């Protein structure tokens, strides 16, 4: 299983539209709207790197209002509890 964070910059005024678009992607498990150098941080959990590629290229990138994305694939994770 592959998990990744996608750091997204959004076109001004398109945040809600982007949120609605992201909500339609089943593999998206968490969406955070943030202040700072990125506007939206998305977490994706999926089966393989290939599938992750398909989702980012065919689904995330096609959402209107997204200016740029940076994908950060998780190599190892430490969770409390």
């Amino acid at each position, binding site marked *: 299983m592959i998990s990744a964070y996608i750091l997204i910059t959004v076109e001004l005024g398109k945040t809600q539209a982007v949120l609605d678009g992201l909500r339609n*992607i089943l593999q998206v498990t968490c*969406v*955070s709207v943030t202040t*700072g*150098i990125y506007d939206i941080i998305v977490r994706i959990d999926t089966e393989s790197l290939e599938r992750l590629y398909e989702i980012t290229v065919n689904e995330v990138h096609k959402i209107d209002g997204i200016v740029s994305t940076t994908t950060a694939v998780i190599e190892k*994770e*430490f969770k409390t509890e």
Partner: protein
Amino acid sequence: MPSAYERPVGKHTAKQSFYILALLSGILSSFTVFTDVTAMVVAMPNEPVAYGIITQWLGLLASVSIVLIVALPSFKHRNRPIGYFLDPNYDKPRIFPWRIMKWVVASGFFGGISTLFYYLLASQNDSSLVLPYSQFVVIYLMFADLMNEKDFPSAVEIQSILSITFGVILVGSSKGAMDLFDLLIVLGPLNISSALYVIYLSKATRMKIKARQNVDTLNLRIWTLFFMNIFMTLFSIPLINDHVMQVIIDKFWITAPYSVLGMILIFFSIIAYTRALSKGKMSVVSSLASISTIMGIPLTLIASLIAPQIFGPISTDSLGWTLKIIGTIFVLSGIVLLSVSEVRAIILVRSRTGSGDLLEKIGKIRGVESVAAVASDYDYIVRIKVRSIGKAENLVIKQIEKIDGIESIYTLITMREFV
């Protein structure tokens, strides 16, 4: 069968769903005042053990039926069971593996003790007297949270939790005094065992069945209730004599409808409670759920209007009403205070080359929810949850900066989060 991770993120923010669930659980359980009081007055006065046994086992039967019914696929989404809408983690009725079941058994053991005490006390006192004092459990849970270093309650939390608890006790004391000995039993054994029940339940909610599948609250409820009933029945064996058996047989059909109705309400209330428990601190969830005491005021009023012979006439005691109003204000202000103070942030960390693995060092800082080592422009993505931006700065960000090997960090404050 869709797995837990293949579902769309919710419409409500993470914070909204936490508060909705915790408050909903309190509101649902407050409606049981109708069924409980009616059953105790109409069906079986002064027979707490018999009533307890009938109610608990019928409750299990009702809960199992609900869990089986909601395993059917829903009309709109054929590939999802109806139970998905109660808890997205639910897929089918299941037996948990022993590593999860041991917490369920422990939770059931203490739940059984506290349930038995509750039925015994509620028969001698008005049950609406026992309930507010049993909210004192929040104080024990707060100590349990305090001992859990990762989940240390902040000053704001302690203040609001105390405000809610004392508010609840004020509302409760407006109904008159409880016998001192009974009060000590409530504050001691009853509350300690219900605190342990919540602690083990909370442990169980944080377990995973498989790598990506969390324990669902529906199955969790029926198994906890099952063990709770077994222990409760075992402990009440010394109290069961021929007379009690006779009462159970004679009054079974009169009591059954109230018991089943009440336990169905409790089932949904517990589902909401347990789901909230998996998202936040035990003391916070429990104090939010104690909104049931406030809800109890208008509900008892309505009940008294409809059936004064069962619920008694409407109180005209001015001191009582003053206490109720002050208590309500305390509870509501505590809830508002809790809900406005919560900050989440995501921190992007770049480390120096050759600094080694910093994953655990960052993960052990208090307030850090999770940290992921990633392959990207950044090396670590850290999620934090604290009670104020000031605390985020002092406790978390400064601690992260202190770690040797970190080159730069970017803090993104979360405004809204959907899970």
